[in-house]
């Protein structure tokens, strides 16, 4: 039965994270050095505390030692965290999602036995998925509604040598790379074949470099991996069903954690503007009492509430294919739809929120310019909305081309 009531557990974890953000994150996140959009140090202490709260292993099953949260709960938590700090939210969301995919679904028992204990034991042990490569074109663009695919071959190679795989190549834009203890790396393992290899951070022949914030648009931390005759045991190859579990990206139904993060940024801007508009007096009244500001705030609230609704729908849908099957949900790429709507709506919302502050909205020692910048990152992170719309159009027309291998990171 259709029901929008959250479970007591969901309400409770939301309150817990909200309190955590208010008490532990905001005071640090609003410090001047964190307000510099282009070069802000990650709040490592906050990250550690959040891990201790269980947010690093949120989506990991209870059997495996996590909280077993569903996608909706993960979105709720990510939104609340991003209200305080989008970088912390991004790192935790990535690790938690990958923990669930890798440990609960993809690894063999033998692999789990090797990798799960160190992951659980260390609050600073994060996970990363390495797919993108320099110059590898992931866009649809010119191939819209054409049989060609833009998916050029994976250039990072893995060659079998006895009991090991030998990896060579470069991966970039790898979220969580600087913090990850374990990488899932997409490799070209022979003619036409790709696979995913588990590569521990300390593998010989792997070097990790943090990306320059100024060059790449992302939340969290991001890095480049260089493999030079890097060897991992043959048993580190993931099972073949990896694509479905890591992905859903091609169907546009991946977990909308980036959108939840985006929403948290929008809410931070909105809450700041709403508060300021009730304090600042011009024209003889609090500025919220002027129609121009009232209208602006209402438009922001509409955009955020609408975005939340569609993000939550997409989140719930991830875990409930039966609702597509019985046509309760439309046969549409809901997460991609949420991405297009939310990223545009929230970017406008943050700009409008900043406008309520007048000149203070552009000052680097005030958070508004940071919210605008952070929302702009969401607007341009991953695939562009132009490309997302083309993919939606292909879905509307029922156009099918051969599925691309694991495309999670490109989303």
């Amino acid at each position, binding site marked *: 039965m259709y029901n929008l009531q959250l479970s007591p557990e969901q309400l409770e974890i939301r309150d817990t994270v909200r309190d955590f953000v208010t008490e532990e994150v905001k005071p640090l996140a609003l410090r001047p050095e964190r307000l510099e959009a282009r070069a802000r140090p990650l709040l490592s202490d906050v990250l550690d505390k959040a891990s201790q709260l269980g947010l690093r292993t949120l989506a990991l099953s209870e059997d495996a030692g996590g909280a077993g949260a569903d996608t909706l709960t993960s979105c709720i938590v990510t939104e609340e965290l991003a209200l305080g700090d989008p970088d912390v939210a991004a790192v935790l969301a990535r690790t938690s999602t990958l923990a669930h995919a890798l440990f609960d679904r993809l690894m063999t028992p033998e692999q789990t036995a090797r990798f799960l204990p160190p992951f659980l034991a260390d609050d600073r042990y994060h996970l990363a998925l390495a797919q993108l490569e320099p110059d590898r*074109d992931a866009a649809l*663009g010119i191939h819209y509604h054409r049989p*060609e695919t833009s998916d050029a071959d994976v250039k990072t190679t893995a060659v079998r040598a006895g009991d090991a795989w030998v990896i060579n190549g470069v991966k970039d834009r790898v979220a969580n790379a600087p913090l990850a203890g374990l990488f899932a790396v997409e490799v070209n393992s022979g003619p036409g074949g790709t696979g995913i290899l588990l590569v521990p951070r300390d593998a010989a022949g792997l070097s990790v470099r943090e990306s320059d914030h100024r060059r790449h648009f992302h939340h969290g931390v991001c890095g480049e991996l260089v493999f030079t005759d890097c060897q991992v045991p043959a048993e580190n190859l993931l099972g073949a069903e990896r694509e479905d579990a890591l992905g859903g990206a091609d169907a546009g139904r991946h977990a909308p954690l980036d959108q939840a993060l985006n929403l948290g940024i929008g809410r931070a801007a909105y809450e700041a503007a709403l508060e300021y508009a009730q304090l600042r007096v011009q024209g*003889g009244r609090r500025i919220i009492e002027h129609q121009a500001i009232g209208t602006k705030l209402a438009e922001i609230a509409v955009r955020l509430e609408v975005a939340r609704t569609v993000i939550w729908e997409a989140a719930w849908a991830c875990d409930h294919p039966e609702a597509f099957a019985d046509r309760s949900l439309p046969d549409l790429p809901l997460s991609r739809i949420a991405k297009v709507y939310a990223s545009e709506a929230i970017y406008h919302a943050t700009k409008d929120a900043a406008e309520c502050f007048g*000149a203070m909205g552009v*000052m*680097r020692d005030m958070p508004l310019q940071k919210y605008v910048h952070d929302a702009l990152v969401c607007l341009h992170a991953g695939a562009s909305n*132009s490309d997302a719309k*083309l993919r939606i159009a292909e879905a509307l027309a029922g156009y099918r081309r051969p599925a691309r291998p694991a495309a999670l990171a490109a989303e």
Partner: protein
Amino acid sequence: MDFTLSNEQRSWQMTARKFAEEEIRPISVQRDEISDPRETFDWEIIKKGSRLGFRTMAVPKEWGGHGTDFVTQALVMTELAKADSAISKTFSQCWKWSHLIAATCTDEQKRRFLQPFLEDDTYLLGKGISEPSAGSDNRLPPADDPKAGLKLRAERHGDEWILNGEKCFIANASVGKLFFIDARTDPNAPLKQGTTMFLVPRDTPGFRIGKVFNKSGWRFYQNAELIFENARVPHANVVGPVNGSDMKTQQAGDRTGGDLFGDLELAANALGVCDDACGMALRLARTKKQGGRLLFEQQVVQLKLNRMHLLTEALRSFVMRVAWEHDHKL
């Protein structure tokens, strides 16, 4: 009807274009990325531009300036902004107050202040209106709150006025040598009947610069606080009648609500930004490939470029018309 530029206009435009490309563009990004807002300024570019006339071009010919019209000013702002919006604004800020001097100062004041302004390549101008609790109230004071608006106080003592208070967000504050300051001279009258405008040189005793605001854009163009602690300004520096600061607008023929030049300035500057953005996007679309084909071949790219150019050309048409209408006091 004739959209042709005069030779003089064309010449200013070409000089500005060359200066922007050769001198401004090479330093633009680097200046913009400097973290400390006090350190973004570069006096060399100001001096070079000043020698080409870009600091003083709005001063009337009879006072020794270039006496350019608004059309020329719009053209130059656009050209300079193509390379750096903030540097363009730093120059045009001086024109804004050149216009004000021409429109409101006595001949004696003009002699006293225009002369050094014209002679010194580092002489920049500013004007202080905004205060922490008085922004839009200064433009549109609420009828039901006569206390609203700026609070900076000026009291007369003999031949001097003693100023106390603070201005904020003041453009060129940290680099300017002369400021127009709006101060409350009758605290019991509403803003428009109790405010007087003063000319305040940088070295006025009791007058200092506060913090430079750390803006997320326009880094070169500095906005700062002006702080007045018993600052002493001679009565000879009062501009227009006491309690008559409002004369700078309507009486001076301004029907835009007090910012005839300022509104044109922002639009002409934005036009330069749009021009450069269109140019960059078009160059990228014509050189970068996706899936083996130029980006330009894709409809979604074409539609974006079309819209960008449409808006830019519409803006250019509008800006030039407004500039011309200002020149002809329509």
